[in-house]
């Protein structure tokens, strides 16, 4: 058997493995969870946890809140009170009075136990990991960078801590009944897949999930079953955040998730390696495309200074890692000029200390400027100095030392940005009644109006300064022009202007060909076909080849070999020598991997020049040669011999009346014009 080293796979003979399938398990464009089936491997790209579901729940106060406990139960229009224990009403909004629950990625679309690997882009996109690794029979490996794992762990631990330290006896489930849900007011009525919502995982589950992670470094090439190679690239968004290249020898898929081109603390984004992609999956763009981070930082500082100068306190609900580092750096430069040197800054989180310390040790994952500081040596982030000079103090919670040190007016950074759990709930209750105080929202993950709903009526000022450093649409447009992928695949939200600003056609992806969009629970056949497979040829077999130059620079050789396929690698091995069957014994059955080799006929190539061919025929005694041109070639008529030679591009037929001698003679004349090899 003989095969070219690259195999064109025609549409007719298409194997299912040649299609690229993408399963979308999350509808949240910045908390993605996608599965890619590519060359017999099943790769999960991120497992983000949509926490906006918690906005439907009442906050978990750290200390008994008379206000929350006195909220009236919700009564149906017809006066039915069967839900009044589960649902409470606050300023016209209805909330579930229960332990907050999260909306998990889709688990029914495909069997998640078949997932081979999970690639994590950044610490925000791994929050659903325990649900996947501990509940679905997952046996594969998770790949992530070290800062992603460490900070991801902090985020998970903080989340578990926030929820577990305020045990709630009640677990509401009645309202989830489809018939009941239909009767509820919005947004509860419209909440999707409430039956799949789950409570938070536990610390052991977090530990078990994280134990399945294998650490990787930027640009490290990881082979998956010999079929594909995956490589993390710096994405510039957060410490250790990555985009991923998933490639085989002839195909390249880029997965861009949560990237930033701004100069903040992480290492800059690697754009060059994304070039020449067949498909670029684009997720994790900025959630607030109209808010420029620079302008928002300015707003943040101005509002903070105004509040503190008027004797008010500032509350900043935030995650324990990420933008907070940049905010502290801005404040470090700003507080002296704004006359705020004597105002204490408090950072309260069960993981505050670890977060501040981790940030200083991941030097290799930082931007160039910060890396150079390490060699001086200086701490890369100035929050070290803020801590040293007692301007910034951090505490695991409001209990303990914090209550002794607490001085007002002050600025408090604490979680959770949803305002449903964590120390922030306490400060909302404490400061909400005074118009001197301000809550400044900097995290873009939650609608600030929804977050504030259970605290109404609220006297404190609310300022929305979402700082989202991820790519905006202008940057995406430049990026796509730069890296020129053949196809772009993105969440459907990116293919149309935001619903609230339908006239802003600049706030969508604009590329050619138009981007393919996907939504939750959708399976997408990606628009490219795998056409080639690489096959290696063994040296001894290569030695035996005799190439024949047919055109200058192009040589051909026939190959007889055995195709050996193992671990998705294909190798052409020399064929076994034909063995003489032992005379006395019965001929052995030919084994599968050593097929019988038949003597080869030479291959022919070349074209027949008609004029010369006619002359040759005439020389050999055919006098009445007529040539007719056809669509595909020529027909040579030998009237006397009642013979017809049909010469086409890829075939030649000699049609004569049972005159084998004549046919052989004519065949030999035709063959004279062709090359053999």
């Amino acid at each position, binding site marked *: 058997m003989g095969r070219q080293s690259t195999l064109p796979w025609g549409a007719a003979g298409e194997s299912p493995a040649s299609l690229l399938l993408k399963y979308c398990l999350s509808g949240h464009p910045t908390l993605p969870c996608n599965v890619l089936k590519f060359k017999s491997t099943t790769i999960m790209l991120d497992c983000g946890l949509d926490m906006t579901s918690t906005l439907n729940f009442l906050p978990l106060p750290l200390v008994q809140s008379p206000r929350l406990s006195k909220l009236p139960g919700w009564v149906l229009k017809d006066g039915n009170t069967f839900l009044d224990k589960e649902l409470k009403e606050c300023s016209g909004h209805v909330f579930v009075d229960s332990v907050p629950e999260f909306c998990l990625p889709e688990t029914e679309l495909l069997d998640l136990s078949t997932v081979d690997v999970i690639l994590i882009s950044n610490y925000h996109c791994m929050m659903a990991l325990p649900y996947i690794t501990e509940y679905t029979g997952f046996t594969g490996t998770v790949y992530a960078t070290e800062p992603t794992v460490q900070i991801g762990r902090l985020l998970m631990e903080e989340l578990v801590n926030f929820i577990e330290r305020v045990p709630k006896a009640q677990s509401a489930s009645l309202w989830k009944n489809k018939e009941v849900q239909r009767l509820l007011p919005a947004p509860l009525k419209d909440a999707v897949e409430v039956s799949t919502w789950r409570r938070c995982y536990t610390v052991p589950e977090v530990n078990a999930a994280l134990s399945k992670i294998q650490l990787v470094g930027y640009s490290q090439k990881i082979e998956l079953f010999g079929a594909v190679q995956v490589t993390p690239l710096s994405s510039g968004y957060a410490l250790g955040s990555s985009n991923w290249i998933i490639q085989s020898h002839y195909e390249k898929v880029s997965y861009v998730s949560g990237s930033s081109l701004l100069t903040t603390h992480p290492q800059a984004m690697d754009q060059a390696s994304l070039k020449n992609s067949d498909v670029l999956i684009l997720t994790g763009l900025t959630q607030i495309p109209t808010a*420029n981070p620079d*302008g928002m930082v300015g707003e943040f*500082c*101005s*509002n903070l200074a105004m509040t503190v100068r008027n004797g008010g306190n500032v509350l900043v609900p935030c995650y324990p890692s990420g933008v907070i580092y940049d905010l502290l750096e801005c404040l470090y430069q700003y507080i*002296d000029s*704004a006359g705020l040197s004597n105002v204490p800054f408090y950072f309260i989180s069960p993981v505050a200390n670890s977060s501040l310390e981790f940030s200083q040790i991941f030097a290799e994952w930082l931007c160039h400027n910060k890396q150079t500081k390490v060699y001086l040596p200086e701490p890369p982030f100035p929050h070290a100095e803020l801590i040293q000079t007692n301007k910034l103090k951090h505490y695991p919670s409001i209990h303990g030392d914090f209550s002794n040190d607490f001085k007002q007016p002050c600025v408090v950074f604490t979680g959770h940005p949803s305002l449903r759990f964590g120390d922030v709930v306490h400060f909302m209750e404490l400061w909400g009644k005074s118009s001197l105080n301000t809550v400044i929202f900097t995290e873009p993950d939650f609608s600030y109006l929804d977050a504030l709903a259970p605290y109404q009526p609220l006297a404190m000022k609310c300022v929305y*300064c979402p700082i989202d450093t991820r790519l905006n649409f202008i940057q995406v447009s430049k990026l796509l022009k730069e890296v020129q992928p053949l196809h772009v695949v993105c969440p459907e939200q990116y293919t149309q202007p935001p619903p609230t600003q339908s006239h802003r*056609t*600049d706030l969508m992806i604009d590329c050619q060909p138009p981007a393919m969009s996907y939504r939750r629970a959708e399976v997408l056949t990606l628009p490219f076909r795998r056409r080639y497979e690489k096959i290696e040829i063994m040296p001894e077999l290569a030695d035996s080849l005799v190439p024949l130059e047919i055109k200058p620079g192009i040589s051909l050789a026939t190959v007889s070999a055995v195709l050996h396929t193992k671990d998705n690698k294909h190798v052409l091995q020399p064929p076994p020598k034909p063995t003489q069957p032992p005379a006395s014994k019965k001929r052995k059955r030919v084994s599968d991997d050593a097929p019988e080799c038949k003597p080869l006929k030479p291959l022919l190539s070349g074209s027949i020049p008609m004029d010369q061919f006619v002359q040759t025929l005439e020389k050999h005694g055919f006098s009445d040669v007529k040539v007719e041109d056809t669509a595909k070639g020529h027909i040579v008529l030998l009237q006397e011999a009642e013979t017809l030679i049909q010469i086409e591009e890829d075939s030649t037929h000699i049609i004569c009346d049972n005159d084998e001698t004549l046919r052989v003679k004519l065949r030999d004349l035709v063959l004279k014009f062709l090359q053999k090899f």
Partner: protein
Amino acid sequence: MDRECSQLLPSVCAVLADSRQLVADDTFLEKFLDWFKTLTETESSLLLLQENPCLTELITCVLKLKDPSSSTLSFILRLTGIFAASESCFQYLQQRELLISLFGEVGPLSSALWEEASVRSGWVQGVHSMVQHQSALHFLCNCGAIDVIFTLQGDPSLFVASAANQLLVHMLTFSLQSFQTKLVNIKDCDWPVCAQKLIVHIEESLKSNSASRIKQSLKLLTSMFGCCHDLWTEVLWSQLSERIVYLLEEKPVHAWHSLVDLFLSMARSPVFSCPECSLWTSVTCALEHLNPAQVGRLAVGVLKLQECPQAVRIQALSVLLQPMDCVLKAASQPLEYPGLLNRSVNDSATVETLLSCRSSCASLLCQTLAHLEELQYLTYLPVDLPYIPLLQSVVTILQFCIGLATPASCLGNKISRILIGCFRVQRSALDILGALSHRESHSVFMGSVSDILLAYLKSPDTSPTVLKKSFQATLKWLVRLSEAPSSRDHWQQTEQFLRDLFLVLQKRLCSPYWEVRDSALEFLTLLVKHLREKDGFRQVLFSSEVPKLMEDLLEDPESYVRASAVTAMGQLSLLTQLISKMPGIENGNGKEKSIVAQLQEILSTDSEGFPRRAVISVFIDWLKEGHPDVLKDTEQFVSSVLQAVNSDLDWEVKAGGLELAEVFSAQTLGRLGLAACPYAAVSSSATRSTHLSESLQIFCRVKLFEFLFGALCDCDRPVAQKACDILITLKAELCEESSLREGTRAGLSTEAHGIAWLEETLRRWSSCAEPCPRGNADGAGSQDPNGVLLVLRTVDLEGLHGSLNRSSDHIEKSPQSLLQDILATVGTLEDNEADCY
């Protein structure tokens, strides 16, 4: 030429003629030429050459040199041109065949040095200087120089090309100067030979296929029509107009830039102002055929003209309004704005294409907005501007730029995508928005202008430069509205706007960007200055946090911001004082005192110059406007300020201190009836003497003279000049009568003393703690009136005034010095070269 120069000149010429002796600094040559230019204007050139044969020898020698330097050759060409400008001198030089050797075909033209642009430039300039008489023209026509000039029009050196063009303009206008009277029915065959040659060249160039030749000729015509307004220009135009129109009708119009320049130049000439002139047909054709991006400059130029057919003006205005009309229609607007144009002048598809393309949209809009803004400042606009739709279109552009406009068409979508975040367009649109405030209309302001201004002022994405423009536009509107007679309701609405504005200002004053804090303070200063009479404004201001924040910014780490805060507080303090005079309004008077002290502290201690300069300006304003805290003890105030300024090293602070001293002295003398008011009642000499003595004592108490004399000795000339001016004024007031009497009584000589003596006296004053005995100028302290008066009389202020007014290099500027310098530098080049090793 004076004798000394005549004696030096041969040596200088010898140096210049010697190719081995390189003149190190060729600016000498330029100065040398300037000197000769001046000389030939006042003396006979021929005489100059005859009396100084070295000059002719110099020209001859350089011509004979095998390898002259390009700078020397260029110099000789220009020098010869200057001499040849005189006809007699021309003949003199021609007899010696120097002109043909220099400007003819055998001269530098055929040498290798012609490759040097400086030589070609010298040649053109020499010819230009020479063409002052017909003989020169004939000479040039005969020696083939005109063809050389034609070639030089396309010279690779832009300087040479431009000079050649100017030369042709000069030759053409000169050759036709004497034909003025015959012009009424002149035909082309009547042109003088030289002019004929040039005109044929222009015609041929315009008919050629070479874009560069066409542009050269258009440039030539532009310059010519710009500088020459003789009647023959009209005849020339009639000969060329057909070809020009043909150029306009070509697609694409390559030379549109030059054509616009030409039409603008011609339109300003009185020769073409007649409405029937064919120029207007061509201008109309240009307005029709060129696209709005090309023709905007012409349109605005046309609208600025005093004399122009009304139809052309209307068309020009339509050209400018068309892009605005397109923008207005591209956005969903309320129906009350039908658009800017009744009809479309141009193919609107062209404008739409320009607006839908990223590269042309912003530049077309910026250009159109700038042109329309220019029109707002014209005292008289001869066409009706559709004010309201124009304003609405500007607002729409601003809305597009921050994503607030809703596109109504495909074009709108494209414009929206292009303009969002485009700072250039934002700045231009805000400029014109401010300019449109002159047609103040309260309803318009409250309708859309106030909203868009607040949107820009509030938006965190507004760049600092755009924010500054937004402040400027807001100020213009508020000032206009405050000046306009308006109903109570109107002003109440404005007050609501002010309340919103002050909320924004609070935030902007806390901005982490110093440019923003600075702009906000500048805006506040002007706002307080212009609106301080408005009750409502004051109430909004003082009910906000802004005054406190302004005061906090006196300690800003950025010196520019501190300076702006000082100026703003200066205005605010005047306003607070104004309120304090009103019954029923309390103000923190105690606080005000601290403001004066704070500013004085900044003046004495701030390490940066800007805040100190700002403080002194504020103090001058306070003194002029009679700030109550200053009036309470003006002497103490002035004394402390002068003391602080005296030790300041910044000359601008000192100059400010001098202005303060000037105001104070004028006020003191005026208060005592000694001001130079022509209508003031003449006081008796005894009263006057008493008042003079009183003033003098006041001046001595505040140590005014010590400060002024100190400043007179200052090494910064502007400071010394200013001090000298003030002292001369004071001397005239104080010394006119008393000086002689006092001087005689003291038995002192009235010999004038200079700076050295004054410095010595000041030193003695500073070491003399107590006033010294009267009449002893040498030993008197600065607080002794008589001693001071004697010094004032004795110092040669007039002499100092004269020397201070002369520039520092007045001695070095003389021709003699120039010649000596040339001689002195010769030979130093080698030394310098040796030094390099």
